[in-house]
């Protein structure tokens, strides 16, 4: 841990007494934390630079006008000023944090492309094709119910009306269709995962 010879409180007091060098020490001591804090909110170097500058202009004015009441909290005080200026910035622009692709931060580093790549698309097609072939092996009544439910997205009520059986029978056929599918898949060690 870095040992700081002169505390912030002493530096602030010296600055208020006219020691300009004290401000330089304070800025260099805290600039990275304050700058990073602002950048973490606005994600734009130029805006961060502006807010950082405005924050310290306020700090300088308040200290010179003797408005600052030292309670050993110089950094939190500057952070609070920076935070308020960040809020002012967003309020003024009336928008949420904006990402543009001109700076170091690229939106594409956090946004993924959800579309399947060529390989995954081929695997998906293969899996669907395998599944169709297994379904074809099912008894006709079970296949009919499963096709209507999974591929035509019909409700069991609609299926029962279409096939002329009760809802419970349709549900039972669906259940047996799934059980039989699992049996075939297990028996033949078919892998149906993408």
């Amino acid at each position, binding site marked *: 841990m870095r040992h700081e010879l002169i505390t912030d409180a002493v530096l602030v007091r010296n600055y208020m007494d006219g020691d300009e060098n004290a*401000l330089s020490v304070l800025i260099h001591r805290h*600039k990275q934390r304050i700058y990073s804090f602002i950048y973490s909110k606005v994600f734009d170097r130029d805006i961060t630079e502006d807010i950082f*500058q405005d924050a310290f202009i306020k700090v300088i004015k308040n200290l010179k006008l003797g408005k600052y009441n030292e309670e050993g909290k110089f950094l939190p005080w500057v952070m609070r000023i920076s935070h308020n200026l960040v809020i002012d910035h967003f309020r003024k622009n009336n928008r949420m944090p904006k990402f543009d692709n001109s700076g170091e931060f690229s939106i594409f580093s956090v946004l993924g492309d959800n579309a399947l790549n060529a390989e995954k698309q081929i695997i998906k097609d293969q899996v669907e094709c395998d599944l169709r072939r297994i379904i074809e092996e099912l008894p006709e009544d079970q296949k009919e119910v499963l096709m209507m439910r999974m591929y035509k997205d019909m409700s069991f009520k609609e299926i029962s009306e279409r096939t002329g059986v009760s809802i419970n029978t349709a549900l039972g056929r669906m259940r047996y269709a799934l059980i039989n599918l699992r049996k075939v898949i297990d028996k033949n060690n078919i892998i149906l995962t993408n």
Partner: protein
Amino acid sequence: MAKLYSECPQKKDNLNPKKETVDFLLNYSKALSVIHYNDLKFEALQN
């Protein structure tokens, strides 16, 4: 050799204000003086 595009090229360890900004603040501080007159305080910027 092929580039490793999977590596993250961004490093955020140099988040510091520009030297110009810091210099401006120090100069601003030197230029700003507060004049006390009775109970009133006046800001004056000397270039």
